[in-house]
């Protein structure tokens, strides 16, 4: 007789084995490794929650300490590979295979380990792809997640950094998997229920709060005149003509400069209410002055940011908050919002080639994709119109029928022609290609494909690629804003001049911008202290950003 409930039986057996170590659902931190040994089976697919802002760090260490003869060859399916322990698992042989999305701080080591054969790579995904595969063919057997607090029944409060948790739990708990949560504290009543108790099987109280890093804080004191000029060009050369209201910003200094110019330069241009009103965005401290000046109507967030809790709580008109008043973020929904509900993505990258393909991979680092490719991609499934979307579509296809023509999402790459240590932003060939050859990957890790990019903004000007009709025009438009990089100096000057005449390339003076006006006095806040002042004392920056 065929059995159709094998997985449920196996899940129940795992829970029964773990229950021996638990009082109710609660397991002591010192028993965490034994719990994992009881629940895990070799070869399991395991999601070890590693978000941007919330790390199941205690469970990472507990997993690293398992007896390898009992638990080995795990298949890790997790969005973030960010803690050293995440990779130590492979060094120890506890884990064997990896599917992931982002590896920021571990990007150099993961490249070495992939090259050295320590890790069997499934694929590098975007967040949405990996989440999607959780429900199709990469469903976790066990999810090790992190939350701020739990009650004794197992209801979880994730705090402002909900991020991936609902998605991971949904996929695991409803497909016969086991969910183990580390929590900072166990309380009588959680402030709000982010994850209902019937989806949570074990709770481990951590000895110290999970580690959170301020990833989205850009100190205004470090913003340069070049970044300010580039930001002015973006506002006047892209935001204004398209009237972009719904958008996503990257996390670099150029977009931080834009955020800080809205209440000053943007105000002077009369753009308030006409641009930058609705965001899919983490709570960037740099956006505080624009919010306080009444520019921003609504923000949905992937996760939170350190120090922003009180501010968000007090600005619930702008942010999504729970009944307890704190931020509710959700990476999967925010990514979807960025993909389908935003008219523009603007962000920086490390390398752009002559076709406009961009990558954050360098020869020795694999940082993964995170969410940028989903934000920075035209959504072919989009059907609702908006003014910027239609205008961009018309520029790309001026002869098409208006009723049948798809719109285009604005995908803007912004950056200075030279980055840190004078490394050029523009290259003839992406390092990603070299890396793919070296690692024998099927696909080079391209962050944003050139055919999705609509504009490139540098301090030299704005290139509107929508208006380019041939590959050659496109290449010269890119060279035409590539400044003094090798790519820029090898431009065809006559053709670049022509492209400028027909508006493909706009120089600062074409937009009525004098580069000498790109002054730090334009920034609405010039220091973290200024941001605190703007927030009325509600923003509490982490110590490393203070100078008081």
């Amino acid at each position: 007789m065929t059995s159709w409930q094998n997985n449920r039986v196996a899940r129940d057996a795992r829970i029964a084995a773990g229950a021996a170590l638990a009082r109710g659902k609660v397991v002591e931190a010192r028993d965490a490794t034994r719990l994992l040994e009881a629940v895990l089976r070799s070869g399991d697919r395991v999601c070890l929650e590693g978000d941007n802002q919330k790390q199941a760090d205690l469970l990472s260490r507990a997993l690293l300490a398992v007896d390898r003869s009992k638990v080995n060859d795990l298949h890790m399916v997790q969005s973030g590979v960010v803690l050293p322990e995440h990779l130590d698992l492979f060094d120890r042989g506890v884990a064997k295979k990896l599917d992931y999305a982002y590896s920021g701080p571990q990007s150099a080591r993961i490249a070495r380990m992939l090259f050295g054969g320590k890790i069997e790579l499934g694929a590098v995904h975007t967040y949405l792809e990996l989440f999607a595969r959780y429900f199709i063919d990469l469903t976790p057997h066990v999810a090790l997640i992190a939350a701020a607090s739990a009650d004794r029944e197992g209801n979880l409060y994730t705090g402002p950094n909900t991020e991936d948790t609902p998605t991971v739990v949904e996929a695991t708990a409803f497909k016969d998997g086991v969910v183990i949560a580390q929590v900072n504290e166990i309380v009588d009543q959680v402030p709000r229920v982010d994850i209902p108790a019937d989806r949570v099987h074990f709770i481990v109280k951590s000895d110290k709060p999970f580690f959170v890093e301020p990833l989205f804080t850009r100190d205004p004191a470090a913003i340069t005149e070049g970044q300010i000029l580039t930001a002015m060009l973006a506002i006047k050369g892209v935001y204004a003509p398209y009237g972009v209201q719904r958008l996503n910003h990257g996390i670099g200094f150029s977009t931080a400069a834009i955020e800080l110019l809205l209440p000053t330069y943007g105000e002077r241009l009369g753009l308030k209410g006409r641009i930058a009103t609705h965001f899919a965005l983490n709570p960037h401290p740099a956006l505080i002055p624009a919010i306080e000046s009444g520019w921003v109507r609504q923000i949905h967030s992937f996760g939170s940011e350190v120090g922003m809790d009180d501010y968000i709580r007090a600005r619930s008109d702008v942010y999504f908050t729970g009944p307890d008043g704190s931020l509710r973020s959700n990476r999967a929904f925010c990514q979807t919002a960025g993909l389908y509900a935003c008219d523009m993505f603007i962000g920086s990258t490390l390398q752009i080639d002559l076709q406009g393909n961009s990558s954050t991979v360098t020869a020795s680092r694999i940082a993964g994709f995170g969410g940028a490719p989903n934000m920075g991609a035209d959504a072919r499934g989009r059907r609702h119109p908006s003014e910027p979307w239609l205008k961009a579509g018309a520029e790309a296809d001026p002869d098409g029928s208006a009723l049948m023509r798809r719109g285009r999402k604005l995908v803007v790459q912004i950056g200075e022609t030279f980055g840190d240590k004078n490394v050029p932003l523009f290259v003839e060939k992406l390092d990603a290609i070299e890396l793919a050859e070296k690692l024998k990957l099927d696909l080079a890790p391209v962050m944003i494909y050139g055919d999705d990019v609509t504009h490139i903004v540098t301090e030299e000007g704005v290139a509107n690629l929508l208006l380019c009709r041939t590959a050659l025009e496109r290449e010269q438009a890119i060279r035409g804003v590539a400044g003094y990089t090798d790519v820029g100096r090898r431009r065809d000057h006559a053709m670049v001049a022509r492209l400028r005449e027909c508006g493909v390339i706009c120089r600062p003076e074409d937009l009525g911008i004098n580069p000498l006006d790109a002054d730090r006095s334009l920034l609405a806040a010039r220091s973290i202290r200024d941001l605190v002042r703007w927030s009325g004392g509600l923003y509490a920056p982490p110590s490393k950003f203070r100078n008081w």
Partner: protein
Amino acid sequence: MIATKDIAPAERARSTSFNEASARTRLELLLDAGSLVEFIGPEQREISPHLKIFDLPEQFDDGIVIGHGRLDGAPVFVAAQEGRFMGGAFGEVHGAKLTGLLRAAREIGTIPVLILFDTGGVRLQEANAGELAIAEIMRAVMEARNAGVKIIGLIGGRSGCYGGGGLIAGCCSALAVSEPGRIAVSGPEVIETNRGVEEFDSRDRALVWRTMGGKHRRLLGAADVFADDTVQDFREAALELIGSIGAFDLDRLKAEQVRLADRLRRFGACEDAIDIWTAEGIAHAEAVPELPADQFIALANRIGRASRDAR
């Protein structure tokens, strides 16, 4: 010379962060408009003779602007360190420019000197020359004060006032400091290296500032005036101090001995600045760093520590 009434573009001075401005901009906006005249300006190219040994770039003014100008019409000598060039550190030429200025001030006897500190201390690559330059400046400061010159230190730059800079500041007639300003001898990293991260975590910037920062120094009475971080505020602080400093004599050093001994007795066992502030009777001492300038100034005045007649 005809006294020109304050024609400084006060608006620009009010909107310019002292912390962020360059040495030259600080002076231009601090002094009456157009009154700054530099001595041995950059066009003289009196660069450091030593940096080339280390294949390092020089700066035409060696990181310090010196000259004279007017403050509310009255003449002043000025020196401003550029904290971004080699951390504003003292080298041979850098230091000699200030020494020469102070010696002239002593001979004249009536023109005050403003020193806009912004320094990490001795310039490593010319450490011996820099250390001695600081010793010479300290001597020149005391000789000038002895001759009746008022010497005022303004501290609010990004490199703070560290190492020998802190000692020179300690020799001045009076100091004005802003919130981002720091005054100390050993830098945070040096303390961490010597004592371990448990005693002093140099990356904990809140700790750094409450140990060495402008607010703590003002509450201790090490600085007499707390300025908001604008050039205009420092200008007003300088004017206030010039107007209020009395003559220097031995009694001041005796009073300083008493002042410092009293500090050691009261606070010598405190572990942290918050303990000191609490001992001063401040109710919510942990909130002091967050206080806006006006509230902080009111608090500091209520505590009432100053060193004006005791330094």
